[in-house]
């Protein structure tokens, strides 16, 4: 029976119709063989637009539908669903992309119209040869992997676990908590960061539905939405978690000191350590790289003092395998390497600090117990906070780091409160966009903090006059005064740019995500799906997607959790129907297909000497189809005949 094809051409308002003459496209389509119905409509994706398709399928007994509109990546699912509702197999639908690939990229109306006709002709040519496929579903593993134990991951893990779904949380540091744990106060409310975070950290550790793996990293990810297999490397802790009571005597007695990562290297930690006093879990780990025993074979002081006998020198890394239905990536942000910022004095002058270093300086568990002092122990009389160091800067990061204006205000308040020093803010624009942020800025204006509208050009210790002697001099052009200022201060804090984590690229690859041009993980849609990724079942939470403050990070974490949960509670997931199939009559048993399949989906039967595709593992890439020398493998929905028909119809060749 000859196919009965319906062609529907969308105006998309003026998006298509403003450039492409849709009536000519319809007229052309109506003349092609097997096209029994061709119409145009203003918005095909609207309810009435979809209704047109459904009605026509019934009224004109259509056996194929072609919609010429936007990208199939946008609305193919919409129209497939409409076809299915009218009783037509959804795989008998084909989309012609005359918007993204035509009207939006061409100005010459004649050329665009001719191209649109070509595009629709090729779609019709393929549609003619389409075959119905069965939609297949597989169960979703009722467990979610959360990668990263910062506040985004914590929020997401708790939301998922509270809904009754199992969670595995993997954190590479000794403790969860992330950057938020390093902070002293949070803007604009000035609540104590640890006071609001640590209860949540403890909840994670104690939650019956959460399995917490700290000091661990994801090693590999296999599988697909609903059915991932993840290998996790649990690094050797050399401390038996089941026996250790977290009393901390070993830490006290350990003679080996190394710079603490948690304290930005401003104070030492021991070789056996927990990241910070409120660490979760509280049981320490031995850092093999710095431990004296592992270096010289002598010491074992921790073991001598450990009453419950929890030290295990023969501990090994373990790789555990977890099966999960969804993956939530919350690996957080990094900071720009401040050593590239030497014009602002970092690395040259001891009293030039990054924002995070100041957080530790100001923190009660930090190197000075929370006293804001200079390197010589004296109290600063004046402090300059330099905004946008490395952010909004074509030489470093083009984007705004989104947190600096507000933490600069917080710092100014805390410095004034603790030291009564004069505080200068050198800024380009004040960006106080969140709830209560502008009010906080106004409060600071009244607290007598000095605001200089002008980005600091450099910091020097070269005094030009007596006032500048022994001081750090910040030079900036005040754009309100229209003059270059030199401001002598005792301490300089650099609001250095938020950056992607150093290994973001490798992590993106591991989870099948993309990177945005700024190096952060790419979301599926910048506005409507900022928590999903191009890989189904892999979600994003927090500052790994873009710089975020705490409220936004928490909201993002909760949003990602609910999206992951909707996948989990759906229970089943649709898998690829357009898989490969071996035509046994043609198979010569050469096994080349087996070698090229990236998923190991092809098995070879020794008895029959034939290859077979396991449809539940096949992802439909078609590499085996193109490779098979006998032409014995069909790629469903993209078979040779369909593709060749499309090529034949790509242009009017005569």
């Amino acid at each position, binding site marked *: 029976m000859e196919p009965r094809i319906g062609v529907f051409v969308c105006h998309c308002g003026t998006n298509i119709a403003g450039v492409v003459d849709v009536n000519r496209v319809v007229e052309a389509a109506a003349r092609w063989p097997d096209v029994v119905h061709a119409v145009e409509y203003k918005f095909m994706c609207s309810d009435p637009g979809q209704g047109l398709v459904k009605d026509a399928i019934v009224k004109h007994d259509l056996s194929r539908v072609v919609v010429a509109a936007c990208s199939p990546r946008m609305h193919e699912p919409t129209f497939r669903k409409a076809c299915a509702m009218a009783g037509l197999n959804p795989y008998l639908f084909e989309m012609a992309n005359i918007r993204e690939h035509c009207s939006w*990229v061409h100005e010459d109306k004649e050329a665009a119209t001719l191209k649109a006709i070509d595009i629709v002709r090729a779609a019709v040519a393929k549609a003619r040869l389409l075959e119905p496929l069965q939609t297949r579903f597989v169960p979703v593993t009722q467990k979610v992997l959360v990668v990263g134990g910062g506040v985004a991951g914590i929020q997401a893990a708790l939301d998922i676990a509270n809904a009754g779904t199992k969670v595995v949380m993997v954190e590479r540091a000794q403790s969860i908590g992330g950057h938020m744990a390093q902070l002293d106060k949070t803007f604009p409310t000035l609540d104590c960061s640890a006071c609001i975070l640590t209860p949540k950290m403890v909840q994670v550790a104690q939650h019956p539905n959460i399995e917490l793996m700290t000091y661990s990293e994801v090693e590999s990810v296999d599988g697909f939405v609903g059915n991932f297999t993840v290998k996790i490397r649990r690094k050797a802790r050399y401390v038996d978690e089941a026996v250790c009571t977290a009393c901390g005597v070993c830490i006290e007695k350990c003679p080996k000191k190394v710079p603490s990562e948690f304290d930005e290297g401003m104070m030492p930690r021991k070789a056996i350590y927990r990241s910070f006093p409120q660490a979760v879990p509280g049981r320490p780990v031995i850092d093999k790289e710095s431990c004296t025993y592992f270096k010289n074979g002598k010491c074992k002081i921790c073991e001598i003092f450990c009453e419950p006998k929890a030290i295990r020198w023969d501990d090994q890394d373990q790789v555990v395998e977890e099966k999960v239905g969804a993956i939530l990536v919350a690996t957080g942000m990094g900071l720009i390497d401040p050593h590239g910022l030497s014009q602002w004095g970092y690395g040259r002058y001891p009293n030039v600090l990054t924002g995070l270093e100041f957080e530790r300086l100001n923190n009660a568990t930090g190197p000075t117990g929370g006293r804001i002092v200079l390197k010589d122990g004296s109290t600063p009389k004046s402090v300059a906070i330099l905004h946008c160091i490395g952010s909004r800067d074509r030489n470093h990061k083009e984007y705004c780091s989104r947190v600096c204006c507000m933490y600069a205000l917080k710092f100014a308040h805390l410095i004034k409160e603790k030291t009564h020093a004069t505080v200068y803010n050198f800024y380009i624009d004040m960006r106080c966009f969140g709830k209560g942020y502008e009010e906080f800025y106004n409060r600071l204006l009244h607290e007598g903090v000095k605001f200089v509208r002008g980005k600091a050009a450099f910091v020097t210790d070269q005094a030009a006059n007596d006032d500048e002697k022994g001081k750090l001099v910040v030079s900036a052009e005040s754009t309100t005064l229209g003059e270059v200022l030199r401001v002598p201060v005792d301490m300089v804090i650099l609001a250095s740019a938020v950056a992607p984590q150093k290994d973001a690229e490798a992590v993106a*690859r591991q989870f099948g995500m993309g990177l945005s041009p700024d190096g952060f993980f790419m979301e599926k849609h910048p506005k409507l799906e900022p928590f999903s990724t191009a890989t189904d079942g892999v979600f994003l939470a927090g500052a790994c997607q873009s710089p975020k403050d705490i409220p936004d990070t928490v909201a993002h974490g909760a949003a990602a959790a609910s999206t992951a949960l909707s996948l989990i509670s759906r229970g089943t997931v649709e898998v690829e129907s357009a898989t490969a199939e071996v035509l046994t009559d043609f198979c010569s048993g050469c096994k080349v297909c087996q070698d090229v399949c990236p998923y190991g989906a092809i098995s070879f039967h020794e008895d029959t000497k034939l290859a077979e595709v396991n449809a539940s593992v096949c992802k439909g890439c078609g590499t085996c189809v193109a490779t098979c020398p006998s032409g014995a*493998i069909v790629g469903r929905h993209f078979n040779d005949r369909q593709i060749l028909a499309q090529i034949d119809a790509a*242009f009017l*060749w005569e």
Partner: protein
Amino acid sequence: MSNAFEPRIVVLCCNWCTYAGADLAGTSRMKYAPNVRLVRVMCSGRIDPAFVLRAFQDGADGVLIAGCHPGDCHYINGNLKTMRRYPALETMVQQFGIEPHRLRLEWISAAEGDRFVEVVNEMTEQVRALGPLAWKQRSAVADLSGSPHAG
């Protein structure tokens, strides 16, 4: 319409990177030469050399094969198969008397709308400079229209 030569270029590209990159060029309202027609497959690894020959045989003046960057393949490594297949295809096409610039392999990611535009414009001009291929007229080529089988 003028009778000036307008190159006809068939683009065989993958769904996940290059097709999406072309979508991005569209959503960003970039402009490029209207001389290309895209044929979408799920992975560049699906691109059978027969597709390329068929396009030339049909009358294409150029064929662009495009996929994800090595290491970024949606299907782990399908593009590496394309990469390994390509030199043989290149040799074959040249043995048929087709100039090397008429066939091109490019990696264009979903984020590289600008790269898609650049490649399309560049290739259009290169092919325009070469003139029409008119493969059928140029040589008495054996009929290649039969694909290996009906699959």
